[in-house]
């Protein structure tokens, strides 16, 4: 089985701090990581390869040159080949423009690596949290999609996907080729081995630029080709004036809290 995993390099949002003077995000010194949910997608692909050893896993990322570090990490964990999609004209793309560029990139990579049976993505990126690029790629390629997947296994000419639902989980059968987005499973993704890490460090990662997709509609990419625009961004106001209760004993504190909640009609 030939699987493509789409990954994004993101700042580790748990490490982001707010500058109290300017009330802006401090991005300096924040480590970059492979988006958490994309790592789950890679693990799902690796588990399929565990059972079907003749499978191939290719990873692709759109971003600046530095994103190669994320791709190398994927190579060290489980991927066989990696491609970077990078060009100044792609900068400022919103989700629709990004998914359009990636769908063009996927067709180009297929010329080099063979047709993909499945495309795996993370449910969403932890910096933007939109959960849009995966389903939009599926739409551009006219593939069926399953979102919020926990696990996937090959079952003849289809995938059987365990999907997280609001009223219990579901098993969905989906025809190949398809696109699946993954959320957090019950198991931890595997770690890279030393041997794979060394090989990943030496790996050549080809970069695809706009020159590789001569047929792309340039009115649909970059900042100008994006239907949505950020008008302004701001740091949300912190809640202030919370009441801290610290009575003599914990029992007294609890009694006071119950009274306050009751008076405020919260309970």
């Amino acid at each position: 089985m030939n699987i493509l995993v789409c990954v994004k390099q993101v700042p580790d949002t748990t490490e982001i701090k707010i500058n109290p003077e300017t009330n802006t995000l401090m991005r300096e010194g924040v480590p970059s990581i492979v988006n958490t949910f994309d790592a789950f997608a890679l693990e799902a692909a690796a588990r399929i390869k565990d059972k079907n050893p003749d499978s191939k896993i290719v990873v692709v990322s759109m971003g600046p040159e530095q994103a190669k570090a994320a791709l190398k990490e994927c190579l060290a964990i489980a991927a066989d080949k990696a491609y970077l999609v990078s060009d100044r004209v792609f900068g400022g793309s919103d989700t629709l423009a990004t998914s359009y560029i990636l769908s063009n990139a996927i067709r180009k990579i297929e010329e080099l690596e063979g047709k993909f049976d499945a495309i795996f993505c993370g449910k969403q990126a932890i910096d933007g949290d939109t959960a849009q690029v995966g389903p939009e790629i599926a739409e551009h390629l006219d593939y069926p999609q399953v979102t919020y997947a926990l696990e996937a296994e090959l079952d003849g000419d289809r995938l059987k996907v365990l999907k997280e639902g609001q009223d219990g989980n579901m098993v969905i059968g989906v025809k190949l080729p398809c696109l699946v987005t993954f959320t957090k499973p019950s198991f931890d993704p595997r770690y890279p081995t030393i041997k794979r890490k060394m090989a990943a460090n030496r790996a050549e990662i080809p970069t695809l630029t706009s020159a590789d997709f001569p047929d792309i509609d340039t009115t649909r990419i970059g900042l100008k080709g994006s239907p949505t625009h950020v008008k302004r961004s701001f740091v949300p106001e912190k809640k202030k004036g919370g009441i801290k209760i610290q009575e003599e004993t914990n029992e007294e504190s609890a009694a006071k809290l119950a009274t306050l909640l009751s008076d405020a009609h919260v309970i």
Partner: protein
Amino acid sequence: MEAKTKDLWVYVETKEDGSAKSVGLELLGPGRDLADKQGGKLVAVVIGSGVEQAVSDASAHGADQVIVVDAPEFKEYTTDAYTAAMYYLIDKYGPTTLLIGATPDGRDMGPRLSCRLKTGLTADCTGLDIDPESGNVAWTRPAFGGNLMATILCPDHRPQIGTVRPGVFKKSAPGNAKAEVVREEFHVAPEQIRTELLEVIREAAGELVDLEGADIIVSGGRGVGGPEGFAPVKALADVLGATVGASRAAVDSGWISHAYQVGQTGKTVAPKLYIACGISGAIQHLAGMSGSDCIVAINKDPDAPIFDVADYGIVGNLFEVLPALTEEIKKLKA
């Protein structure tokens, strides 16, 4: 696509029993406000099989018009069938704005639909307004795990679409149903639906965790110390009629299943009351619950960041505070 009307649409998702999910009815509130400002009708769109109850629900919560597609192939949500139906309706009527609840299915359909329409979609909005300069909808949403808010416009493409988190807006009390009901015949051939529901795995009785729909959540974190530490958390939840939640630390330690996790890699919740017990308040947890109306924190560390977002905080040992609080609430309810 060109807008043919100034109408604002709210996609009203349905439950298994054919009634409307809360979030769709919640959105009719801000939907009315935006529709009035845009100078168009407020239209609810209902898709499903046997969904008369949802049609009445939408009508009673203020829609001017309800467009309904009711056919057997829409019994279960599928990306292919629902996207096709919505695309057909939008192509036919041309609304200027569409609101969708940011439920798992709404977030599955939204991007698929907006991509087919080649228009912009703003995900997981927590604020809606009309931009005074341009007249476009100003969509406000959190990013970077809630550290940053962004206001987004979609100036040149129609319809402008946004998904809105459940619980952000409050459902109005139902009034007199007066909506005009428009029934659309639309069908999807079986071979066009490329996914198949093979099995539904219900959690064991009592294990069903509906955090997104909960009014009150009592969550435990690292401070509960072990699986048995959830007992006082559950006891408090029981007297309050609340749902139990957990932080990533508690889930990763194997004390409780991932289904209970609140936060960036778990559920995003917005209950009326959120009680955090032994949770320090890491950014990734706050991202999932800071939209709650009232936050109570119980933690023995007075410097825990959870107190920064809490409306009420008790600095103390949760194993003494929780049983005492449970008793006090029992007394109040008696």
